[in-house]
């Protein structure tokens, strides 16, 4: 089957920002001003929330989890058996990460994560989701034609490798444990963490 026939599929939603963004900025500003004026929100809290998510969450957290699993077999076993505990152990926890399941890529299986209904994502280990993860195209297509989607990311998964898709429809959040790249025996855990990409932990890239 070839769905990439260029008919209809090439003309997706616009990817660039349109003039309505000015309206969005005004809308959010009005909401903030009203909420502050009415004493519903502490203005400083907004800055602190943003700072927390931008500084303390993000893919570097997930990368350190992955690197540790690559170098410590016991940790890997723990991580795959009880992802939440093993991740909490490294100090990562919080909203949208209360229950994390780690799914392992192997020579037989490639995993990829999505949330078709909204855009659930494991915040403590990956930060907030990138824009494309929240796009209608990704949400609609990755459960129906994951190989075709992965191919757009430059990742051709051979037919003999099973693709496992994880649609985050309830409270469990998913993190992909990528395969350790060959030729990395000499690297330290920190150097290994440096190789791990966010897309590698969503499943839209290898590492």
């Amino acid at each position, binding site marked *: 089957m070839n769905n990439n026939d260029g008919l209809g599929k090439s003309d997706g939603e616009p990817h660039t920002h349109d003039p309505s963004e000015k309206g969005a900025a005004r809308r*959010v500003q009005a*909401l*903030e001003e009203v909420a502050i004026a009415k004493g519903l929100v502490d203005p400083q809290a*907004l800055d602190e929330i943003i700072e927390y998510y931008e500084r303390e969450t993000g893919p570097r957290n997930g990368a350190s989890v992955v690197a540790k699993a690559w170098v410590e077999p016991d940790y890997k076993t723990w991580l795959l058996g009880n992802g939440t505990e093993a991740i909490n152990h490294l100090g990562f926890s919080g909203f949208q990460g*209360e229950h994390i399941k780690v799914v392992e890529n192997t020579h037989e299986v490639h995993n990829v994560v999505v949330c078709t209904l909204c855009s659930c994502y494991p915040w403590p280990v990956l930060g907030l989701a990138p824009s494309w993860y929240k796009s209608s195209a990704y949400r609609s*297509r990755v459960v129906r034609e994951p190989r075709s989607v992965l191919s757009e990311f430059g990742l051709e998964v051979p037919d003999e490798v099973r693709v496992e898709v994880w649609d985050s429809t309830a409270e469990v959040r998913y993190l992909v444990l990528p395969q350790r790249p060959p030729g990395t025996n000499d690297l330290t855990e920190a150097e290994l963490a440096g190789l791990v990409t966010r897309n590698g932990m969503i499943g839209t890239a290898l590492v």
Partner: protein
Amino acid sequence: MDGIHDMGGMHGFGRIPIEDDYVFDSDWQRRSFALAEALAPITPFGTDEHRQAIERIPPSDYLKLDYFEKWAVATESLLKQAGHISQDELDVGAKLFHADVGDRSPVTGPELVQAMKQGVPLKFPDDSQPQRFSEGDVVLVSSESPYLHTRLPRYVRGKTGLVASAEGVFAFPDAAVGGVGAPRQHCYTVAFSSETLWGREAEPNEVIHLDLWESYLEPA
């Protein structure tokens, strides 16, 4: 709700906008995110209510608006529903009446960040509810499509899957926002083959997993 948000399997949305690789592209997106987080405890609203408010955005707007503009629309709508703000206030960007929030007060930044780091308890003891299914059971997904909020996507309704694991007891979102079903239920990871879901045109050798509450499932 059979809404536009339930888009798993839909055709026509084009290529993945891979080049949109940012979390925030503009400062107003940061503010919108933080406002939703900061206003949740005082309004109060939870994740399920906020999701439902997003799902109720008219479909043409849903597809057009930026993700964080939808968050702002949902936050506005929950604040209006609670009677804490009015559309007139949003139109002029100023306070027009006193909001009665009872004995709640704005949560401070450190308190909010502390809560965010801790997370919220979502799981109840495994034995707190009877467990109908176990790993390896074949299950038939309900064909019901309630008007209210649900976490059962359309693309698996009426399909047969295999229970891959029992995930424990969680609050049932459908019930939480006024729908039917036990308020706390076991939730299961259910695996579906791509052929089951997509028939003749399925890509080969694929398994799609969803986490589904017990109410959504019957023995097959």
